[in-house]
């Protein structure tokens, strides 16, 4: 829509100080997201996907440091904002939903109470108007008989309802950018589908830009316009959803897709594909390709040279030295761990 991208992240790097040294949670993550699009960041635990989200929001834990060339949202430079400006901007333009709504809702106050508080923190309106607003938004997220719900406490709601309440609370301040960190992971499959349906409908209706963090490739395929596959703190593959999922080029993405048991597609009872080994330590020296120790196509160059996120056709970017057709299994014995 807009001529310049709505979100610009340029070389975002997040280091965390730990007892065992500095952990490179996120290394040089860059992307641009036009207004109204959905970017999914997909990766396994420890890949740095949540850290990227928190880093963007500026909600990092104390031991973490954030570095970036540029962090721009809606043409405003997040890095240059004063704390006051930032807290204002965060509530009004950017909002975040978390995996476990129970921990983000205060158990001591009613839903209505918390919603009114949230609106009035950002907007100068009366409590009565705020309450009307709150019930309007609850209806919008598909909670019927919302007047009664406003008097309920978080523990009286099911997980799905709580997540809907969280979405309503987040949308009340009319943000333009939403960062959703595994918002459906803790939910049952049927509820997950309903919540995704709702989020996606609202996103389209309100023209929201969304960054969606998940580990589930199934979810990615259904809601994302673009996908970033994250591994060991880096984007290893980035592009349009169809492009990445249908013609995955990075060995990690290809491996992940083979790991999934898909009803009707993977042969029942047959062996699934695996990615041997486990995620490397993110502390200390990080030279070479992060995936080299688990990659079946590993070559000597992979262990020594820095692998860039290279542009391929169709705005598809891949962090691999080789094109898929150049990948040869078992080039060296190194990295072949059980």
């Amino acid at each position, binding site marked *: 829509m807009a001529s310049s991208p709505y979100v610009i992240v340029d070389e975002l790097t997040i280091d965390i100080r*730990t007892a*065992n040294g500095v952990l490179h*949670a996120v290394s040089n993550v860059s992307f641009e997201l036009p207004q109204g699009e959905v970017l999914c960041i997909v990766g396994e*635990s*420890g890949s740095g996907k949540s850290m990227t989200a928190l880093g963007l929001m500026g909600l990092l834990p104390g031991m973490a440091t954030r570095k970036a060339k540029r962090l721009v949202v809606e043409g405003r430079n997040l890095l240059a904002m004063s704390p006051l400006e930032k807290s204002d901007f965060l509530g009004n333009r950017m909002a975040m939903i978390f995996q476990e709504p129970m921990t983000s809702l205060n158990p001591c106050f009613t839903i209505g109470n918390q919603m009114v508080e949230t609106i009035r923190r950002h907007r100068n309106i009366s409590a009565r108007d705020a309450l009307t607003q709150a019930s309007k938004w609850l209806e919008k997220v598909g909670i019927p008989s919302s007047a009664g719900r406003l008097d309920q406490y978080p523990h009286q709601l099911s997980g799905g309802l709580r997540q809907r309440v969280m979405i309503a609370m987040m949308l009340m301040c009319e943000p333009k950018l939403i960062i959703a960190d595994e918002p459906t992971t803790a939910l049952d499959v049927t509820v997950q589908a309903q919540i995704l349906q709702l989020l996606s409908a609202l996103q389209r209706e309100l023209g929201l830009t969304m960054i969606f963090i998940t580990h589930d490739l199934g979810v990615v395929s259904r809601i994302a316009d673009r996908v970033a596959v994250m591994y060991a703190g880096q984007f290893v593959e980035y592009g349009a959803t169809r492009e990445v999922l249908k013609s995955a080029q990075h060995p990690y993405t290809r491996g992940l897709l083979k790991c999934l048991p898909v009803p009707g597609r993977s042969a029942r009872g047959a062996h699934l594909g695996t990615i041997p080994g*486990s*995620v*490397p*330590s993110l*502390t200390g020296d990080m030279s070479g390709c992060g995936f080299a120790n688990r990659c079946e196509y590993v070559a000597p160059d992979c262990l020594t040279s820095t692998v860039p996120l290279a542009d391929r056709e169709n705005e598809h970017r891949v962090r691999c030295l080789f094109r898929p057709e150049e990948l040869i299994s078992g080039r060296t014995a190194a990295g072949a761990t059980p």
Partner: protein
Amino acid sequence: MTDQTAGSNRGAPRTWWGVFSRSKFLSHRGVVFGGTMLVIVLAAALLAPVLAPHDPYQQALLNRLKPPFWMEGGSWTYPLGTDHLGRDYLSRLMFGAQISILIGLATAIISGVLGTSMGLAAGYFGGRVDAVIMFIVTVKLSIPTILVALAVVQLVGGSLQIVILVLGLLLWHQFAVVARAVTMQIRDMDYITSARMVGCSSLRILATEVLPNVLNQIIVVLTLTMASAIVIEASLSFLGVGVQPPLPSWGIMIAEGKEHIFFRPWLVMIPGFALLFLVLSINLLGDGLRDITSPQGRG
């Protein structure tokens, strides 16, 4: 995000854990500080017969109420001066440490065994067992410890053994409460379920699966109880119903010094600081040990 370090431990040599835990031991400030202080007190106590410059019971009325060496009139013959009977204060302090540590340890162990077993049973079995044990704890908590100790010791007569026994029977409640709380968390862990499925007896589960996971909390309580036993013993002795003179308990030393507190304050301050020093070192060490022995390590 919690799995980040898990992979990094793969392929560690077998001795790695030992090396790591030892280095962690030495890098913890509380442990180093508390440990050093405790070692000093322990050495003083254990080596008192060898190191003490004088016999702690030997009176020398001519030399009574000598000030410590750093004050005017003090001398190196009596580094910390003498008390109102002319006994060497340093020697009494060192022998007194023996008493304090003995009482602290013995009390903590008696009450630890008692309280921990009650807490484990209450937490693991729950239901009626829990109700009964928690009732006993509640009753215990409503008993004023010092008053009961005073009364009992008054009745039976004060001696080292009686003080240990009374304090041991009075200080177990913290063990019970902590052990119960931790056991209740552990009880629902899948490894307990798994042990039950395999056919382990409850006793075996409590001893081999639950207890090792409760121990690091118990160590902290142990140190706290030890510290408070030492303080209570000093109080009882101060009040004249604890360890009986001429045994050089720190409490007795403070009691005897209190008459001179305005003109010879060191008579109270020296055993007072010794008490503070010992209790502080035990508490620091306890906190540190908890940090180190928990499987997750610090932070």
